[in-house]
């Protein structure tokens, strides 16, 4: 049994310490919002926060996550997370949507370190993959989130180009 702190609660999981955290979350704890995409930390669909830092759970072993604070998309909370998720909906980002929890986790982590970065700075720190090509919408969403988090110095919003 390994003890994991997930979303503010302690869980005992009966897995080998070399099990990727992703599968402990999905199969043992039924937290399926964290997605499997590549298994090699290449796509970011499995992004969680470990001690507040974005991490790719497919390539982090349960043994290494023990004793740390893990947050998944299901446990995401706070004003930054709310701003990001609201922005994602407002900008109508998701298409198939499979990769989006990973993007939300990545964006929230980046903004959590500094909520008044430029849009470009935020985007440059997100290296996830979306096969539906929602990148333009994600750029818009990040701008909206920054506007929500920095009401005084909101960047002008990009006009929807398809009128």
């Amino acid at each position, binding site marked *: 049994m390994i003890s994991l702190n997930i979303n503010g609660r302690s869980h005992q999981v009966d*897995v080998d310490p070399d099990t990727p955290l992703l599968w402990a979350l999905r199969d043992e704890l039924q937290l399926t919002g*964290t997605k499997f995409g590549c298994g090699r930390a290449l796509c970011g669909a499995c992004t969680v926060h470990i001690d507040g830092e974005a991490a790719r759970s497919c390539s982090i072993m349960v043994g290494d996550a023990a004793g740390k604070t893990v947050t998944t998309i299901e446990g995401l909370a706070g004003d930054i997370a709310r701003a990001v998720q609201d922005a994602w909906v407002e900008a109508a980002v998701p298409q198939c949507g499979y990769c989006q929890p990973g993007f939300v986790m990545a964006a929230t982590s980046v903004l959590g370190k500094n909520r008044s970065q430029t849009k470009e700075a935020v985007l440059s720190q997100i290296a996830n*993959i979306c096969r*539906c*090509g929602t990148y333009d919408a994600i750029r818009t969403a990040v701008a909206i989130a920054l506007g929500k988090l920095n009401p005084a110095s909101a960047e002008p919003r990009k006009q929807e180009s398809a009128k």
Partner: protein
Amino acid sequence: MTTDRKPSRRGKIARRTFLIAAGVVGGGLLVGAGTVIARLSSIDGYKLPADDGEASLGAWLKFARDGKIEVAVPHQEMGQGIYALAVLLAAEVLRLPIEAVRAVPAPVHARFANPVVLLDGLPFDGHNDGLFQGASVWTFDKILRALGISATGGSTSTRNIAEPIRACAASALDMLMRAAAEKFGVAASQLKIADGHISIPDGKSATYAELADAAAKLPPKTIALPLLSAGTYVGKGIARADAAAKTNGSARYGIDTREPGQLYAAIRHSPRLGGVLQKATLREGLPGVRGLVEGKDYVAVVASSYSKAVAGLEQADVVWNDAKALSVSTKDVFAAYRAALDKGASYQPRWVLDKAGDAASSTGRTVAATYDAPFLAHATMEPMNATAVVTDKGVKVWAGHQSGYLAQLRAAGVAGVSADAVEIVTPYLGGGFGRRADLDYIAKAVEIARKFNGTPVQTIWSRAEDMRDDFYRPAAMADVSATLDANGLPSSFLYRIAVPSVNDQFVKRALPAAMGGVLPDRSTVDGAIFSFYGLRNRSIENFTVDLGIPVGFWRSVGHSLNNFFFETFIDELSVEAGIKPIDYRAQLLKAANGTEAAKRASAVLTRLSRFDAATQLRPGKPGAKAGRGVALSECFHSFVGQLAEVEVDGRDIRVRRVLAVVDCGLAIDPPNVAAQIRSAIIYGLSAALYGKVDFDNGRVVPENFDTYPVLTLDDAPEIVVEIANSGADIGGVGEIGTPGIAPAVG
């Protein structure tokens, strides 16, 4: 670029000298006259099943217990927004707020067949409305509807369901009005409708839900349905209901299926195509491992969790039999294409269209070029997976797929039961792009679950399995040549392509009882064959060359190849003629003598031209060249023009910005149309810049996103979408952005 273009006989062409024109960018949404003609027969004969407390209002609509109206959608939601579109159309006709309507999966039933997807593949010129074609399409429509083949693909979802949903909604509203007239004892003309209420002048009113039971008992009447045109929601769009769930992790995909007692399987296929499993042995005593399944060309280990199944598979002793394995490598494929195009050995063109009249007598400058394009993987974000339980009574499958009909058929075939005994549950798809039209992953999941009777087993493919056992966009090679007259316009045009037939292979896999290979496969020449340009003495030849590599439907199918070759060659001609590519295209369109297709393409081209003139090209960084490339596409009855702004620094190609002008007839939900165009362009650009699946002695080379790179936020261009509604019949949207980006960049 991985889509290699061999230099034409004149050597390298100085590209990106592109484009001057005058004018300003036209903006704004032009909502054209509606064009959908109501086919009221679509409301007859079948009623959506209703449980206790529900009330069916025809084939497509019913009241749910909570008073909301449910619209049945026979297409899978794989990102294209078809659920939102169904809600939009039903709410528009029923005059309801969007929140009062929700989309639900339609039952797997012949009533919800999608003939459009197959009709679009018939080998007829889409521009010709001749009697023979009309009669044939009508006949096929009847046959396909009778077969009840449901499918999500070919950019057909909206075209397939928009009209019947509207007709059913109009009929339902009429039934509600009649029920209200009876309830209040007034003539229907005195009734007023607002916000889900029907009221009479003295103030009495009833909600739709209160009238539902009475309305459901009334016989449907034929209702005159107004043509589809701009309305409360049509032409404006609505917010997708799935955005929040897809952002907070609560949306369920096939891979998120969690049934009580469920087991998990990890699967590995033969490393070489065509290889089979000789023998596989489990290592004993591994925790959680429940067993091993030997398939024909795969082995699977089943365990209490996926990671335990993977551990079991990694430690299993597996022997493959390569006696019948393919030994094909990429170079063999292109050599075979070359041989076919050179008419070596036994190759004859399978299909010759528009055989050039007096091509031989054309004189003047000849331009010739050879192009090739690689195999491509789909790489959906959600790897292939399916969950199945097999019991004595039948089979239940949870999986994302692009055809409930074929899923049912495949599962039934594997389990040895009738199709009626198979229930398919379809959660969201984590991407389709044509991959989930092939249902091998469902067949294998059922085969594996069969060994664990009564227990649901979820089979998950690793990314490597997903990439190495795909049905690839075929590689192809084309020889294109033309003779130019004194004005630089082609007096003859010869287009010859060597490529395997996706349809032949697919029919063999999916419907072995049907005869594949009888009709020519239109997809092999889609994008070249029905050109909107006026080209004299045009000849199109297709050589089917199949070395056994599995090929399948990949976003836009044949258009992704032919539009690239064809439009790139048009650029070469324009350079030879000394005319700017946009102007050259304008001249070729003028030469088409006012055909409908040429008019629509011209309107799109004009907007590109205006944008180009009005928008200054930013210089590249020091040492880099910047330029713009153009391409026109017609596919799935829609037109797209693209202008790509490209920066070339040595071997580095960066696409900075793309303008796409779209004419899909009428954009019902313009923001979603724009989202789909952006999506398709990114998909096509990932392929054009990075995509390549190589084969080495029967092995698939790439196996993950490091060896099969795709665009990310860092290199994805900004894409500006302009919608230019022509008012023509509604065309497809989901795939139409893909073909044009490679030639616009290339």
